[in-house]
Structure formats: structure tokens, C-alpha cells
């Protein structure tokens, strides 16, 4: 088992003919993902390798039965691309694009309310169910198929670091999700924690947060109430100065809100095992989850 995506997921790629879109589509195909369609307005009838390209998401869904979209559209047009996918009834939308204006994402988020689509991202590495399908830009080889650990993170390369340490300890993953580093995103920690809790193959969860906002605090409270599986938490940015945007648009300490220390305290208070030193995360997982 896994959450959100698996070997039956039928992927379409919005922005498939761009440089990034092409490169990462090929990587996904090589990993075994079923890439069934691409969308680039004005390029219907063409093919990217063996993947047919359509003008619109609706056309692509109708012709191929795609149920998941991966978005590589540049920031000025990305909000439009997400809404197009949702309007076409795509169940799972994974937005990789970094740098979408906050106001655009707030509109998207309200647009998605009441719709059936799930948005992952934006500004995220994507989602992978090791051995089944990879939808995103993460290096597939560092993952170990078969579970039993679920990983959810606000970061990209930091997630790779965490997964790599798990794999080095011989611990496999059910599904790894990057929910993105933007202040306004689709799927949040709680959605993923809930899904991992309900997934019979997942026996433990690693949650990787960072400074800014209150998502980790809310997730900690949810874990206390609803998650019975062991959770290991990590927070990046303890040394970040207040008021500065640390790369990720969402990673900013405002006043007394969003500090790493506050998040760690909240997580500990809710029974989460907090890893204080990233260098030792793999060992800590081995001792808490067993092998």
C-alpha cells in the first residue's frame, strides 16, 4: 500500500515540452511511472518521445484517462494551470513550479475548496511511492521500496537527505511527499499524517518541517489526537535570523511566531520524537522504528 499515488496512477504533464518538463518527464518514465499525456497549448498532435501532447487538460484527460497532473508551467501561468487541471477533474495535481505569487495561490486555494482535486505543492519536489511511481524531480535511486515508513516534508533536498539516511539504515519508504516551501500550499502536513495513519503498510512517519507559519504546531496537535504510529520530527532553521525570508517564501519568522524553538517545543509536548541534529536522523529512526 501507499498513499495518494501508486503503480496505477496515470500521469499527464503540464508544460511537457519545456526544458524542465522534458527532462523530468523522461526521468519519471525511466522510473516506471505511467506517463500517458502532455499538455502544451498550441502543440497538440506532437509527441514528446512517445507521449502524446494536447492543447488542453480536458482533451488530454478525455483521450487518455489521466488522473494525475505534474505541473512545470512557469510562475506567471502556474495558477492558471492548476485551476485548469482541477476544472478538468484531475484527482491529483502536483505543482513543482517555484515562485508563484502568494495572491495567485490564495485564489487557487479558494478555487479548489469544494472541488475533488488534491493539490500537492507548489514549490515542491513532488511525491514518490518507491518502486511504483515517481511524480516529481527527486532522485529515484535514493529511495528503498516496500515501506514501512512514510515521509512528509516542506523541503526538497532536505527530504532527499532524510530519505537517503533512512535507506542507508535499511529502512524503506511507503510514500514520500514534499508539500512545498510556499506560505500557501495545497495538501498540508495533517492531510498526509491522516493518510499515513490510515495506510496499513505504513508503521511510522518522519515529518520534516522548517521555520515560518504554524503548520508544524497544528500537525503536532493532530498527531496527539489522531496518530497512533510513532512519529519522528525535524525542524530546519534554528539559526535563521528573524524577519528574513530563508530561500523558501514560507520560511520566515514573524515576530514571535514561526520560530524553530517554538515548533520543537510543540512537537515534544505532543509526544513526537524530535531529532535535534540532522546528522543523526538515520540512527534515531533505526532505534525508534526498528529495522
Amino acid at each position, binding site marked *: 500500500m501507499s498513499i495518494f499515488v501508486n503503480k496505477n496512477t496515470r500521469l499527464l504533464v503540464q508544460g511537457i515540452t519545456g526544458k524542465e518538463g522534458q527532462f523530468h518527464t523522461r526521468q519519471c518514465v525511466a522510473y516506471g511511472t505511467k506517463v500517458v499525456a502532455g499538455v502544451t497549448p498550441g502543440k497538440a498532435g506532437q509527441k514528446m518521445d512517445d507521449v502524446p501532447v494536447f492543447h488542453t487538460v480536458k482533451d488530454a484527460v478525455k483521450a487518455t484517462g489521466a488522473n494525475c497532473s505534474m505541473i512545470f508551467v512557469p510562475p506567471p501561468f502556474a495558477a492558471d494551470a492548476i485551476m485548469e487541471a482541477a476544472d478538468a477533474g484531475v484527482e491529483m495535481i502536483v505543482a513543482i513550479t517555484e515562485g508563484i505569487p*502568494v495572491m495567485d495561490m490564495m485564489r487557487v486555494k479558494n478555487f479548489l475548496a469544494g472541488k475533488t482535486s488534491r493539490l500537492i505543492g507548489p514549490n515542491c519536489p513532488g511525491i514518490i511511492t518507491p518502486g511504483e511511481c515517481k511524480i516529481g524531480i527527486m532522485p529515484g535511486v535514493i529511495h528503498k521500496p516496500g515501506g514501512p515508513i512514510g515521509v512528509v516534508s516542506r523541503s526538497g533536498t532536505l527530504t532527499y537527505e532524510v530519505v537517503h539516511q533512512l535507506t542507508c539504515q535499511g529502512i524503506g519508504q511507503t510514500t514520500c511527499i514534499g508539500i512545498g*516551501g510556499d506560505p500557501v500550499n495545497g495538501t498540508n502536513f495533517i492531510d498526509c499524517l491522516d493518510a499515513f495513519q490510515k495506510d496499513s503498510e505504513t508503521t511510522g512517519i518522519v515529518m520534516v518541517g522548517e521555520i515560518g507559519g504554524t503548520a508544524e504546531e497544528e500537525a503536532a496537535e493532530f498527531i496527539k489526537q489522531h496518530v497512533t504510529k510513532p512519529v519522528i520530527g525535524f525542524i530546519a532553521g534554528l539559526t535563521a535570523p528573524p524577519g528574513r525570508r530563508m530561500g523558501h517564501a514560507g*520560511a520566515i519568522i514573524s515576530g514571535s511566531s514561526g520560530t524553530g524553538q517554538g515548533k520543537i517545543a510543540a512537537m515534544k509536548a505532543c509526544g513526537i520524537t524530535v531529532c535535534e541534529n540532522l546528522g543523526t536522523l538515520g540512527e534515531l529512526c533505526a532505534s525508534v522504528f526498528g529495522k
Partner: protein
Amino acid sequence: MKIHEYQAKELFKKYNIPIPEGSVAFSVAEAQTVAEKLGGYPVVVKAQIHAGGRGKGGGVKLAGSREEVAVIAGQILGMNLITHQTGPEGRLVKKVLVEQGLNIKKELYLSIIPDRGTATVVIIASEAGGMDIEAVAEKTPEKIIKVYINPLVGIQAYHCREVAYGLNLAPETIRPFTALLSRLYALFVDYDCSLLEINPLIITADQAVIALDGKVNFDDSALFRHKDVMAYRDLDEENPLEVDASNFNLNYIALDGNVGNMVNGAGLAMATMDIIKQAGASPANFLDVGGGANAEMVENGFRIILSDKNVKGILINIFGGILRCDILAEGVVQAARKTGITVPVVVRMEGTNVEEGRRILSESGLNLTTAVDLKDAAQKVAAIVKG
């Protein structure tokens, strides 16, 4: 992106939001000319820097005559203004805003920000104007009014009424206030602001509602569609190394430690800073070279780290995903040859093409220390700087 108060007020004027009469001045003579045109004393002379707390730091003063304007403008222009937001090094004042003095009856607080949790635009208002709003929120939360607006629907008349009546405004100021608020919301949305704050918004003795102060920050991700705002950028207010880095699409933030570091990805970069600290040293910067870094970017990253004289050692931590380790290694070798790296460098690489990357580094003949994992890397670099 931040702008000055006088620039914020230019935007207010464009949206018919009442502001005091006044103008920016770059010299004492200019300040006097502006003051004379205002048609009466006292006038207010306000230092223009990108930091709050200017009044407490001595950067905002009343002047009762033409002569006093000269004295006060002379004091403020060229002063090194230290506030709780500038840090101990302070900020050099190069311009002042000279405005008419007003007869203030009441001071209010008003701001608009995006609320990330609810994906709405939130208006925050309080009768406790002119004070530090964080302190008000902490001590007397009942004095804070919050109204949330769905951006798909936009601001409605009832939102404005909720704020106006919540502030206990006099009947004759309700209309001017609600008009001001809906224009302010329009400005916020039109310009993709990340913060719009008026503290204080004043009610004068003759019941006029006027923005006595103005602070506007913009969403950096939306600047591509606001070329006019880009003209407001003031490089004097930014760290020169950060400006240099931004020209090469590098995400660099200067800090006060002595271990330079270069990392791909913001989360890993923050975690790397943290682990440097935990190993007993202190990070000199945040530097995210991004997923699509090329050899040139790596080279410039090196140059910028090395131009910080406090740097005693460098840690490179790359988890190759999109950025391949061999590309990174080539960049490091090029940079070392061109700039001549003068401090010890520890390299930790993992991920895509890591074997090729390690081969390039080891065959380069450069004096680099390689680390097997993150913990090892932090310990090695900390040992070097402790020397």
C-alpha cells in the same frame, strides 16, 4: 521587497488615500524649501530608512521654524540611525520626508496582510494606534480587530463597516474611513503586497482620516508584473553582498558567524547552518544555489562567501538531484583556480553522479577535505575554524 515611507505615500496618493502634505528631501536646503511650501509650522522631519522604530532612535522630529528645520535636517541627514530593526550597526540616513504637522485627535492602527493558514486577506485594526502592535496583541488581544476576506470575492461594504464600528469611530468619520479601507485593499491586491501598514492612521481635530505613516512590502515572487515597483528599489538599504548574489540568481543572506557555506535547496541550507552551530561553530551566511545551478553560479557563490572577511572555513553540502554532483565539482574547481581559495574547504556530496563529482575533486590537486556524511562534514569544518 521593502520601500520607503515617502514611496509608500506616493502609492497612497495614487489610490486617493489621504496623506499629510509633504515631500522628500536629500539635503538641508531642500528640506527648508519643502517646509516653506507647506504653509506653516510646525513641520515634521522624518528619516527615510527601511526599518521601524525611527522615532525612538531619534530619526523623527518636530521643527517649529525655518531655522529649526535646518538644524534638525542637518542632524538627521547623514546620521547613523540605530533602531531595534537595524541591528547595532545602524543605517546611514540619506533622505528625509518633510511633512506638515497635524492636530491629532486619535491614533489608530490599520494593516492588511495575507493569512497563510486560511488563504485569505486579513485586515487588522486597533484603537491602540501608534504603539507596537505585537505588544498590543499580546497584552490586550481584545483591542485587536481582524476581518478575513476571501480574495475570490474581494472586500465588501460590510467588511469595512465591521472594522469601522469595531474601532468606535465617530459617525462623521465612518464614511471617510470605509472609503479609505476599500481603496487600501485595492492597492494591496493590485500590487501584490505582502504587508500594508498604517501606524498611526490618525483622526484630526476636524475629523479627517489621514495616513500619518505608511509601510508597504511586496511579494518578491510577484515583482515580475510590477515593473513600476522595481523602480522603488533602494540598493543603499541592502547588504552589498546580497545585492551581488541576487545578480547571479543566488539566494544569499549574510550572517555574523565564520563558517561560510554553500548548499542546494533552502531547507537543506537551513539545516546545514543549524548543524554547523551544533558542531560548535557559527554560520557566516545562508546560501542556496538552487536546483538549476551551473558552474558559473557556484563560482560566484564562492567569490561572494570569500569576500566576507570573517569567513575562516567553508562547508559545501550538495545533495545532487537536479543539480548533478559533477557540475558542482567542476564549479568548485574553476572557482578555486580563478579566485584562489584562501581558507580550508570541506566538501560533502551525495546523490546524482556523485562518483564522477568525487573523481573531479580528487584529481584537481586542490586542497579540499572530503566528508563522508553531514555529521562528519560539520565536525571537520568546526575543527578547522577552531584551529
